[in-house]
């Protein structure tokens, strides 16, 4: 049984465990149908964007590493919907969906994967390093745990500038389950705790590092409890439940803003494919693979909307069609965008120009008298 079912719950700052308040799939009562349909659109958009990314990688339009959010669509859409424009997001190398759900034009995300000047990072970062200062997406980071201290410091800057309150800024720092085992996790949470920083550490627990199960890697595999070493409270939600993710994040952000109480939000999710597009995930059993299919959050949500009478198949079909068209133009936009030109190599060398900055290309002579 997946942990989400096994141990739903939350830890208070005193460390005690109680049953989770998180809604379980099915309870969409009181939600605006329009918004629920929009969630579907976003989830489907991410789904198709990622599937096309995999294709484009196979066709060598995308290079380097490419990690997809397939299976994490509900988590991504729910978490991002709870954030305000003024909030800051730090995330990982598995972040295409976050960028899109944060409201960044998907074409600019695909263009970054293609390494084009129209990409969010102007082609300098690639798939692992999406950044958009307007959307306050302060980076995808490729070094495991690397985003944790800077995200913590961003929250420190917010606290430096003034006291908390309902309208203040907060930081969301996303990480994977296996990342809770690295030192930066410990140092960051400890700083957040002693300085009372407005930050939410969101663990997307897809139960795997690359191929290593969370139970093999973490001494306390109930990850939302790991804040106990800092008196930081934690909550676990079903990552396939878009509404539960949104609500849990809203509450965590409230804690951060109003009480300056850092917290952990663990969303138990499922990685439908390999660690990256080149990973065949041989280490997975047939059985596991089959179960994964049942755990597809997009299919499940689709079913839920239809059965809940929130959308009829025709509506959803037309959304699918629109998404299809959108993703088509997204790929076209990326493909038609210009490559950066080599003479731009030093364009972003330093923010403050400095004397004697090296600008030699390979084979150039050094200064000679």
């Amino acid at each position: 049984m997946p942990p989400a079912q096994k141990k739903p719950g939350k830890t208070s700052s005193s460390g005690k465990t109680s049953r989770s308040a998180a809604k379980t799939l099915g309870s969409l009562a009181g939600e605006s149908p329009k918004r629920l349909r929009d969630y579907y659109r976003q989830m489907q958009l991410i789904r198709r964007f990622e599937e096309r990314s995999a294709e484009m990688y196979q066709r060598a339009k995308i290079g380097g590493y490419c990690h997809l959010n397939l299976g994490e669509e509900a988590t991504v859409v729910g978490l991002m919907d709870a954030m305000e424009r003024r909030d800051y997001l730090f995330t990982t190398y598995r972040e295409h969906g976050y960028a899109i759900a944060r409201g960044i034009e998907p074409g600019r995300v695909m263009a970054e994967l293609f390494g084009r000047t129209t990409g969010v990072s102007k082609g300098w970062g690639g798939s692992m390093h999406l950044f958009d200062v307007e959307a306050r997406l302060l980076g995808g980071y490729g070094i495991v745990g690397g985003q944790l201290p800077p995200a913590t410091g961003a929250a420190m800057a917010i606290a430096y500038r003034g006291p908390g309150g309902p309208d203040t800024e907060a930081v969301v720092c996303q990480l994977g389950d296996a990342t809770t085992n690295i030192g930066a996790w410990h140092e960051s949470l400890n700083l957040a705790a002693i300085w009372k920083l407005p930050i939410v550490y969101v663990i997307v627990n897809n139960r795997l590092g690359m191929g290593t199960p969370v139970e093999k890697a973490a001494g306390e595999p109930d990850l939302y409890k790991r804040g106990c070493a800092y008196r930081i409270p934690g909550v676990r939600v079903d990552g396939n439940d878009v509404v539960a993710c949104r609500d849990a994040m809203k509450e965590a952000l409230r804690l951060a803003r109003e009480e300056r109480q850092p917290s952990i939000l663990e969303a138990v999710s499922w990685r439908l494919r390999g660690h990256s597009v080149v990973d065949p995930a041989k280490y997975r059993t047939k059985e596991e693979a089959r179960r994964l299919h049942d755990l597809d959050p997009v299919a499940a949500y689709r079913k839920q909307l239809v059965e809940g009478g929130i959308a009829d198949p025709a509506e959803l079909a037309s959304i699918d069609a629109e998404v299809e068209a959108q993703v088509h133009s997204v790929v076209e936009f990326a493909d038609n965008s210009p490559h950066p030109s080599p003479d731009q190599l030093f364009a972003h060398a330093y923010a403050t120009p400095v004397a004697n900055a090296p600008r030699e290309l390979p084979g150039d002579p050094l200064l000679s008298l």
Partner: protein
Amino acid sequence: MAVITYRQALHDTLRAELSRDPNVFLMGEEIGVFEGSYKITAGLLTEFGPERIRDTPIAEEGFVGAAIGAAMLGLRPVVEIMTINFSILAMDQIVNHAAKIHTMFGGQSKVPLVIRTPGGGGQQLAATHSQNLEVWYAHVPGLKVVVPATPADAKGLLAASIRDDDPVMFIEHLALYNTKGEVPDGDYVTEIGKAAVMKQGSDITIVSYSRMAAVALDVAKRLEEDEGVSAEVIDLRSLRPLDRRTILESVKKTHKAVVLEEDWLSYGVGAEIAATIQEGAFDYLDAPVRRVAAAEIPLPYAKPLELAALPDATALVKVIHETLDATRFRG
């Protein structure tokens, strides 16, 4: 002599050493169930079990340090750090501990530790995943740092490193894993601390290591055929200790040298080579020692930018020509 890949040579050597000595064991992220990020350890978990092929959490500082402690008790850990970029997180354990323990405690403890890790760029892995940081380790007394360029050296130097009682940084290269070459059969050990003359020559010396040594060899062969330029190619193989004699003997003969390295130019390995040559062969040197190295910028993701930033055969040929010309009109 079988012709196998660099990857295969590493795999076979690990397997042989695991079979030879029960104190040898492997540790690292995803080396077992996942069979290694670059599949060097494929199949070893099944053969040797989880105690000797130990998957670790993502905790470079922790598991490298743990390997140090295990080595102090007489085991012979061979640690894989997925790429050299992540070795930075274990740097305190490598530099302040592995490199110091034998000397700082008056020779009472050995640290028979091998850290295998690949470096290198050119695969669009962008700024944080494309670095060549071996020069940092080469600077540190107490470490031994080897940088095999061929499948044969991958085998010989890995065996030597595992049997050595000091901490060895064994630095591989992502772009070498699929390269093929002849590898001696059976027990084969290459002495640490000795450079190799990959190709004899009389006109100019090209000094390089790791993947760039392979590039240098290709260029040298081409120049010989196409232009009759006789270039001698030296593969350093070991950065610490550095085999200065082999470099100087070559320059004494050719009177000219060029360094090819994949890393950033300033304060790189090439700086030490050039400094060594001008001090040790000053009177034999007919032209400045030029360095062909990477542009000094965090490596961009986009292919055209990445290509512009990294050194290649074309740049090397250009600098060789310029060096030869310089000496001609110098007479």
